[in-house]
């Protein structure tokens, strides 16, 4: 398996895994997978797991919808302000596949949001402690697990939440 940041490792991220205990934010030692979302292209939240999230202000559907909306807009915005390419559509105009750059994380003083979007529109979001390093490989690994255990499961109907 692999480890999140430094220190202890999260042994499994497949459904039914025992939630790994997360250190409280601010201790700064890593090992902090706090929240994980998986969305499909239609904005359906396929999976939601939290390991450390003391404050909840919204109901889960609102929360997931806002998260999806944030990433959707942010992707379009990051492509729009990209200074390296000349071809960009207007802000708000939907991007064609393959168009524009894509972002993979953003950080605030209290958390870091790691993001992976596959060309097929699967979005993986992992919220960690702000001092964790690059999680792109981790997210790729999770995507591989999704393929092995969800996509290849003949009983799974595409587009439904993962049980």
């Amino acid at each position: 398996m692999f480890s999140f940041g430094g220190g202890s490792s999260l042994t499994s991220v497949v459904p039914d895994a025992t939630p790994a205990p997360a250190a409280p934010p601010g201790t700064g030692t890593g090992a902090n997978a706090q929240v994980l979302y998986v969305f499909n292209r239609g904005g359906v939240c396929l999976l939601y797991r939290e390991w450390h999230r003391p404050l909840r202000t919204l109901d889960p559907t609102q929360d997931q919808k806002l998260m999806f909306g944030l990433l959707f807009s942010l992707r379009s915005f990051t492509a729009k302000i990209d200074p390296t390419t000349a071809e960009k559509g207007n802000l708000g105009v939907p991007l064609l596949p393959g168009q524009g750059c894509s972002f993979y994380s953003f950080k605030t003083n209290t958390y870091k949001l790691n993001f992976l979007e596959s060309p097929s529109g699967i979005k993986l979001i992992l919220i960690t402690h702000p001092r964790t390093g690059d999680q792109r490989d981790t997210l790729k690994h999770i995507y591989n697990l999704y393929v092995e255990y969800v996509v290849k499961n003949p009983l799974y109907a595409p587009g439904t939440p993962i049980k």
Partner: protein
Amino acid sequence: MPPLTGPKSGDALFGSVERVNAELFTLTYGAIVRQLLTDLEEVEEVNKQLDQMGYNIGTRLVDEFLAKSNVSRCVDFKETADVIAKLGFKMFLGVTATVTNWDAEGTSCSFVLEDNPLVDFVELPDTCQGLQYCNVLSGVIRGALEMVSMKTEVTWVRDMLRGDDAYEMRVKLTKQVPEEYPYKDDD
């Protein structure tokens, strides 16, 4: 930030996936087609059913392909076609296809397969001359491309089972669907 590892080569990819015995695969596929012919009776219906099966396979298979091949977004349809021919076919069938006959707009092309593991030991009897034996492949391509926002039409042009010299599949890109915000404003 250094770039992550780039796309794998076709051979590396083929080596990294689970494989089954080629003859077992060929015979299983043959058995499926045979069973469909018995159940549905009409050759046209079988063609449709194979295409639908392929489509359902394609919609799932694309994720496995993307996860294992490290391919990121393709810039245009030409690149997509190359990736399918060199990596996609290699990964799942162990053969590579050649991409030819581009039209002027770059929206349709042909995949030519010299070697097709699906058709070993197969002969079409006179009663099934209309059968598109490999229709599952065209369905897979259509399904997989739809998942990456490309609507395509796939037709067979040449078929060795009908005496042609190779297998040729014509893929026509009809529409690229932009990503749309899935929720309505008021809900």
